[in-house]
Structure formats: C-alpha cells, structure tokens
C-alpha cells in the first residue's frame, strides 16, 4: 500500500470539509475517512510488513505500531466528536460563546481541522526524512491550534495561543537540530533520511549528532510534553473539546515521541546510544516526578488528566532510556496509555457535559446520577493507575522490572514514588467525583450512545491487552523495541 | 616623511579649530535664511575675551580658577596625539589611544569640577548630565578604537588609524560604515551639538555643556571656548581618518584635502543641526547606547569573521 495515501486522503478530505455546508454529508465524509484510515493502517501494519522503500514516506516496525494507534484513536474521537456535536446542538457547551458570524461554520472548521490533523499525524508517523518530518510536525501544531480554540472562549484562546507559541518555538529549535543532523552527515538531501543516516553511521560526526539530538529532544520534547517543557500541555488539554484532548494526549504526544525516537535510532549505531539513553532517562524521571506533584490537589479534573499524560510520557521516555527491555515496555505502554487516556478524556467530556464545570470539587456521585458515565470514569481510573487487569499494569511493571534488573535503585525509587503520588492524587480526585450522593436537584440525563461507545470500546481494548497480547502485536513490539533499543536480551 | 611635517597637522588644528564653529553657524544661518555671523566670529570672540578681566563669584574657590587651563592643556595635549591628514602624530607610542581617551576625560573632569565649584544648582545639573552622557559615550569611542586596533593588529593611535586604507573599505564596508556612523553620533554628543545638546538654547534647564560654563568669564571663558573648538577638531580628525583615508602621496596634497574634509564635516554638522530637533533628554542615553551597540556589533562580527 502506498503510504502517501494515509496523508493525502485525509488532507484532501479535510480541505473539502471546509466547503461542505451540509452537516450530514460532512460527518459522513469525516467518519468514512476515519474508518478507511483504520482499515488501511491495520492492513499495512499486519505482518508481513511490506517495507515501502520510499525516500519520504515509508513503513517500518515503529510505524506498524504507532499508525494503528492513531487510527483507532481518531476513529474513536471522530465518533465521539459527532456525538458531541449532536448534543452540543441541543445544549451548548458551557464554554461556548454566542455565535458570531464566521465564514465557515464552526463545525466545518472543526471537522476540517480534525482531518488535517489526522493527515499531519500520519505524515509524522510515516515520514522517513528528517526535514519532511519537521514540516509535518509543525503542521500538526497548526492543524490542532484551531481545534483547541473551538469553543472560542477567553480561556480556550489563551490556551491555544500558548500552545501555538510554545510549540512553534520548540519546533523551531528542532529545526536547528535537523540542520545539525545535516551537518553530522554531509548535508546532502538524500542522506537526511533514516536509511541514509543509518548507512553512514560509521562516518557521522558524533559531536554534531549529539547536538542534533539535544535540540531535537528539546524541540519535539516540548511537543511531547516532557517536563519542564510541558507548560502548554495542561492548558491546551483542559480547554480543548474532549475528543481533541483525547487525540492530543493519545496520538499527538506519541507522534512527537516517535520523532525523537527516529533520531535515537540514528544515535544507536554511532556509539552515542548511552548519551541519548541517559537524556531519555533524565527527562523521563523529571517528567514523572513533576507531574506527580502537580496531580496532587489538582482542582480541575481535565488538567489532572493532562498532568497524568505528562507522567506517562515520562514513563515512555524512561523506558527507552533503559535499553531494549525497557523499550519493549515503553512501546507497550505507549499503546496502553493512548487507549486509556483517550477513553478517560472522552469520559471526562461526558462529565463536563453533564455537570458543566471542570472543577473536580463541584462534582459528587457520578455513579448514582449516571451509572454509565460513572462506570467509565471509575474504569478509566483503575486503568490509568496501572491496576492489574489492565494492560497499563503490565507495561509499567516491565519498566519497573528493567529498572530493578539494572540495579538502578534511585531511579526505581523515584519511579515508584511518582507512580504512588499520582495514584494517591488521582484516587482522591476521581473517586470523590465518582462516589457519594449526588446533589438531589440534579436530574438524570441520557448520554448520547455515540459518546459512550468509543470510550467503552477503548476501555475494553486496554483491558484485553492486559490479559492477552496477540502474537502479531508481540512481534511488532519486539521489532520496534529492537529498532530503538538494540538487541533483545 | 620628515619629522617636521608631522607638526603641521596639530598646528593647523591650533590655528583653524575656531573656524569650525563659525562654519557651522554660517550653515545654520543659511538654512534659517539669515546672513549669519562672520565665519571668523570665534576668533574675534577669543581675542575680545583674552583682553577682558575676570569676575569670580564669592562661592567659587581655587578649582574654578585653575580648571579652564587644565581643560585647555589636556585638550591640546590630546591634539598632539591625534594623527592627522594621513601623517603620524608628533607624539605617539604604544597604547597612546588610552592616553588620548583619558586626556579628554581629564578635560571633562576639570570642567565638571569647575561647574560644581560654583555651587550653582544649574551648573551642577549640567555637570551631572555631562557625566552621565559621557559615561555612555566613552565606550563608543573605546570600542571603536579597539575594533580598529583588532583590524590593524597595532595598539598605537597613529598605527591604528594609519592602517585604514581604501582597501579596508573594500574589505569590510559594512563594519566601517557602522563605525563611521557611530563616531559621527559620538562627535555630535561629545561636542554638545543637536540632537544631544543645543548650543544656542537659552533655557538653562535643557542645557548640558553651556550651562556648565555660565559662570566663567574673560580669559577663562576664552580658554573654555578654545578648548571646545579644539575638541571638535580632534573628533573631526578622528572621523576623517576613518572615512577619508588619505594615502601618503605627499604632505602638501594631504593637508589641503584634510582641511577641506574638516570643513565639510563642519558643514554636515551644520546641516544636521538645521534639519533635526533636539532629542528629549530621556532619549539621549538610548541614542548613545545605540551608537555603542553599532560599534560593538562591528567589533563582534570582526572577531567572528576572523
């Protein structure tokens, strides 16, 4: 299958969506593209992997892992998004300002930007050329900034501005890194592909390569939300519409992570793998620790979820920093975290719609008021906290075991302590919201099935991964871990 | 080059320096549509003042009597350090550019002391401004000299300035242009011209240089006026060394060109004074820092290119 299709079809559909004024038609287009993308990515990712030897876009084991994640999440978010648009039409979102005159209807902009967002994320995952990768990553920022600003409130404006500014600056630094990468090689265009760099691994100048890695880690790390570069993340995640938050957290952060991994892939055969691994470990631990602190006493539940994303990005980064075994855990965790976090943001969206507030302390007894929403919220809590039946337990445990195997006692202590802090923080907030007696004046309202099915399915997928990992997936994970961690022990 | 010709430049300076204010005034008069005072007015003033008696205020002490002559002698000494018209200065040794900067500093110091000695608040205010602005202007001069010293690889003023040729302008036009424009601003600032200070203002509150010498009279005042003209000549010569590199064809060709160059600088100053308004006092530091920034940019880029 030609990888260009994954980029072009959503891109063209996205541009078309701006100009379709019929809601039903536009939603059909949106959902069918999402569906097609999922079918295509599952087909492309199923072994045997057909490596497409393109200079620009191509498949490899990492792509085979990350592309389906993005597709699944996008389909889920799209279905949920259509449901959310439907219910918003009945009962406007609390943040929404009275409608002013817009050239395109807000929904057209929303669906168009969603599709462009999908196109750019697919581009990031598929790109084999570092320059092209930079272009599409910046494109993800540009496509998602209007999504964050969808509600057009002051808060969302502030969040979108911070997002656009901080990420653009970060990504500009990453471009510097790309140029350093070019300097490490000869600077010619064909050598800036991953294959080109790997072929010339012996003759690359390591000083420039180190510099390139630092800049790209800082640049794309901003986008990935590694602390202390995460400052845009809680604002953007809490102000964006919930399906967008789900995509930002579950798909976009992964894309940024993948882009850093690409450089790491080049660093490995050049003998500076230890250098990049140490940086991954450092950023991972800092992110986990900081996020844990911020989760405690977090007054807003969507912000709490955002900080939890920072924490889990820390786990991913730490896992890669531990070599192949950790990388396996990290890859598995990327998958688990995406599913669970997307599910949680969708559940949070339902709660926000029911209670019309983001303040956690104002919400009690979701389980009584609406058992479905409450069950999703509780299930999500158990999953994100890494409790046994869910896949997150497995992946977090693999990382911990690797830490212990390598006798990194301090790192293991920080890791466990941060997980514990986050657990306590999230438990105190989320359990309080779910349990207890609801305010008697509140009525029970019915949630749109389109807003329940996606988080439910994602939750079951995460549950399933904890019980059983399919062989194909296992192989893909091992290949991916080998690509970024050297040989498997 | 015979040693005796080296003295021609400074002697020209001693002789012709009072011409410069005259030329500036004539240009300003021309722009204002007046006939203006004679070009030689400054000479008449000097002769008149020398013949007059001196009045000292009761509050002033010995410093006040002594300062004008210290100022004048420091400036004259500085004049003899400044190479002119493509020839070496009569006094020159390694590192003499620091001495020149500090001689000018001593001249200013003496003037400031005299101003403070009068005990008048106006003069104290002028002194305070003079010191503030000169503190910002001095780096501009020094960094510029450092830049040229880096260019020539020498540390003597005559060597530094003598190494600038038409070829240097071809090599680094942008940097030398930066230096030239910064030094022109410096010339305006150091010599109390518009846009930094207005020599013709009648409001003591806005004066800088003029207010400092309000109390001096007679020959003392003459010394101050003469020192100011010489200072203008020194800065003009500095600028001219940079923008009009006179190669060594022969002293008798260089000197007329040099004098013509000096006069055209005076004309330019007159034009600037005619078409610009004085800056607000708050803006002056910004201008001077800007000038310093220009030369420092040139210096850093020079270092980077090396």
């Amino acid at each position, binding site marked *: 299958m030609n990888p260009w299709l994954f980029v072009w079809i959503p891109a063209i559909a996205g541009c078309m969506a701006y100009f379709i004024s019929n809601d039903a038609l536009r939603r059909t287009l949106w959902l069918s593209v999402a569906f097609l993308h999922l079918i295509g990515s599952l087909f492309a990712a199923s072994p045997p992997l057909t490596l497409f030897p393109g200079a620009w876009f191509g498949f490899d084991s990492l792509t085979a892992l990350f592309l389906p994640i993005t597709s699944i999440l996008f389909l889920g978010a799209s279905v949920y998004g259509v449901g959310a648009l439907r219910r918003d039409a009945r009962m406007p979102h*609390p943040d*929404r300002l009275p409608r002013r005159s817009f050239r395109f209807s807000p929904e057209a902009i929303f669906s168009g930007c969603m599709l462009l967002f999908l196109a750019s994320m697919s581009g990031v995952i598929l790109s084999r050329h570092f*320059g*092209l990768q*930079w*272009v599409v990553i*910046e494109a993800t*920022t*540009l496509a998602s*900034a*209007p999504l964050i*600003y969808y*509600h057009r409130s*002051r*808060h969302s*404006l*502030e*969040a979108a*501005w911070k997002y*656009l*500014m901080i990420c*653009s*600056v970060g990504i*500009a630094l990453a*471009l*510097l890194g790309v*140029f*350093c990468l*070019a*300097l490490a090689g000869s*600077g010619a*265009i064909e050598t800036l592909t991953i294959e080109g760099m790997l072929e010339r691994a012996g003759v690359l100048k390591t000083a420039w390569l180190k510099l390139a890695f630092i800049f790209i880690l800082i640049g794309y790390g901003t986008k990935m939300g590694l602390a202390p570069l995460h400052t845009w993340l*809680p604002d953007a995640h809490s*102000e964006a519409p919930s399906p967008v938050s789900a995509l930002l957290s579950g798909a976009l952060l992964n894309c940024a992570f993948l882009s850093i991994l690409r450089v790491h892939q080049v660093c490995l055969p050049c003998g500076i793998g230890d250098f990049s691994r140490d940086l991954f470990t450092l950023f991972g631990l800092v992110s986990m620790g900081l996020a844990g602190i*911020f989760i*405690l*006493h*977090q*007054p*807003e539940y969507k912000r709490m979820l955002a900080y939890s994303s920072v924490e889990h990005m820390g786990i991913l980064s730490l896992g890669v920093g531990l070599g192949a075994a950790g990388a396996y855990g990290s890859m598995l965790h990327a998958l688990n975290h995406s599913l669970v976090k997307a599910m949680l943001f969708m559940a949070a969206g339902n709660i*926000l719609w029911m209670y*019309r*507030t983001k*303040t956690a302390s104002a919400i009690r007894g979701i389980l009584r008021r609406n058992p479905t929403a409450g069950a999703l919220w509780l299930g999500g809590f158990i999953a994100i906290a890494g409790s046994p039946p869910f896949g997150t337990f497995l992946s977090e445990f693999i990382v911990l075991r690797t830490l212990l195997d390598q006798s990194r006692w301090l790192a293991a202590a920080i890791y466990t302590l941060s997980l514990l802090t986050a657990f306590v923080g999230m438990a105190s907030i989320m359990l309080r919201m779910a349990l207890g007696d609801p305010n008697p004046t509140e009525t029970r309202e019915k949630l749109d099935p389109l807003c329940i099915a996606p988080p439910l399915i994602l939750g079951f997928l995460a549950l399933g991964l904890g019980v059983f990992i399919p062989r194909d997936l296992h192989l893909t994970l091992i290949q991916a871990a080998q690509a970024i961690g050297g040989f498997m022990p | 080059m015979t040693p005796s010709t080296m003295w021609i430049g400074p002697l020209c300076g001693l002789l012709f320096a009072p011409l410069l204010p005259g030329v500036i005034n004539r240009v300003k008069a021309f722009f204002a549509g007046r006939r203006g005072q004679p070009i030689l007015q400054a000479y008449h003033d000097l002769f008149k003042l020398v013949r007059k008696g001196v009045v000292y205020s009761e509050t002033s002490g010995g410093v006040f009597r002594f300062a004008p002559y210290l100022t004048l002698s420091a400036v004259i000494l500085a004049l003899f350090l400044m190479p002119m018209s493509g020839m070496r200065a009569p006094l020159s040794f390694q590192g003499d550019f620091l001495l020149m900067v500090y001689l000018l500093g001593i001249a200013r110091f003496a003037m400031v002391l005299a101003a403070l000695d009068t005990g008048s608040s106006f003069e104290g205010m002028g002194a305070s401004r003079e010191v503030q602005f000169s503190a910002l202007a001095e780096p501009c001069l020094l960094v510029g000299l450092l830049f040229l010293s880096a260019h020539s690889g020498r540390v003597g003023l005559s060597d530094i300035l003598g190494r600038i040729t038409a070829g240097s302008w071809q090599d*680094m*036009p*942008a*940097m030398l242009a*930066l230096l030239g424009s910064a030094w022109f601003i410096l010339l305006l600032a150091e010599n109390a011209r518009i846009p930094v200070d207005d020599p013709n203002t009648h409001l003591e509150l806005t004066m800088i240089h003029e207010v400092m010498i309000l109390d001096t009279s007679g020959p003392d005042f003459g010394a101050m006026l003469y020192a100011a003209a010489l200072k203008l000549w020194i800065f003009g010569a500095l600028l001219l060394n940079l923008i009009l590199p006179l190669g060594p064809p022969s002293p008798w060709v260089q000197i007329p060109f040099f004098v013509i160059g000096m006069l055209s600088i005076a004309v330019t100053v007159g034009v600037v004074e005619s078409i610009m308004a004085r800056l607000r006092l708050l803006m002056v530091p*910004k201008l001077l*820092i*800007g000038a310093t*920034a*220009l030369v420092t*940019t040139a210096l*850093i*880029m020079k*270092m*980077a*290119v090396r």
Partner: protein
Amino acid sequence: MTTLTVLLALTGVLLLGSSRLSISIRLVAIQGFLLGMTALWGESGFHAAGLSSGLSGMLVKGIVLPWLLLFVLKQSGARREIEPFIGFGASMLIGLLLMGLSAWIAWRMQLVEQGLSPALFTVALDLMLVGLFLIITRRKAITQTLGYLIMENGVYALGVGAGTEFSFLLEIGVLLDVFVGVFLMGIMIFRIDREFEHIDTDRFIELRDTASGKLPVEAGEGVR
C-alpha cells in the same frame, strides 16, 4: 557575504532597541530580505542553487509576513509602543552580550576547520537568542510573533550556513509552515484583541494550577 551578516546582526540589535511596533516589523522585513540575499549569494558570489529558496524566502519573510503583521497591527486597536519588561537600553546591551556569546560559541565550535562560515553561524545563533529574548521580555502578542519570526530567521540562517540542500519542495514546506503559523497567530491576535481588549500576553494568567487551594475561575464563566 560579510556585509550581509553584519547587516543581519545589526537588525538583531536594532530590533531590541526599537520601541515602535511598526518599525520592528519593518526591521524584520529587512531581515527577511537580507536572509534571502544570503541564500542567494552564498560564501562566494552568486549561488544558483539558492535561487529558489532565496527568492521564496524573500517573498514570504520579506514581504508577505511583514505585510500581514502590519495589517494586524493596524486592525487591532493596540498601542503602537512596545512595552517591555526590560528597558530598551538594557535590552540592547543584553543583545550585544548575546552576540558576543554567539561569536564565542561559533569560535569554540571550530567551524573554519569544517569549511563553515563562523560569521553566519554567529548571526544565526544571535538571531535565535534575540528572538527568544523578545518572546520572553515583550508583553504584546504581536511582539511575541515577531520574536518567533526572528528566531525562525536565525534557524534559517543556520540552514544557509550549514549548506543544507533541502529540496525545493521541502523549502516550500518549511516556508508554508512558517507562513501558516504566523497567519494563525495573526488571526488569534485579532481575537485576543476583541476578547480581552488588549494584546498583552502577561495578562494571560487565567489558566493556572491553583494547587495552593484557591479555586480557579469557574469554567462556566464563558456562558453569557
């Protein structure tokens, strides 16, 4: 080439000292133009390979984006002065320090041995630092956009200095990204101006972690 780099460095210093938004925007336009020229000229005379990127860079960075920003400035009722957290004189001095630092770094990297132009590297680093400095110390949203643009210019200058031969399509992609980015920022400045009646980003303090126990503004504040 040296002349171009010196002039580029000069625009950086002047940008730190300029107190009027319209002048700053014009300085950035000049900067974009000079950058295009550097790509066109290269280290030794006219450089045909840089033709497309040089011209497109000049067009986007020298004409289109500054025009867009000037338009935004005119439309928003913002005061035309830049209100800095750090004064202009101090900013300029810091700018000089940053330039010195860049020159020192360029010198330490021993670029000449690798056949790279240290002057261009100095300027590239300097512009990036100046851009970051402007983003941090100026409070208007439009100055932050300018800072981003300057920083981007610095990165671009480094690309020119590194002699990275991106293909034409990639160059266009990068420029398109920058263009759309600044375009979006422009639109958002409009909206910020309308919602907040100012474009001062230092008053963007409504979103924060009020972990100290104080409750945040209710999210329902938007409902009118």
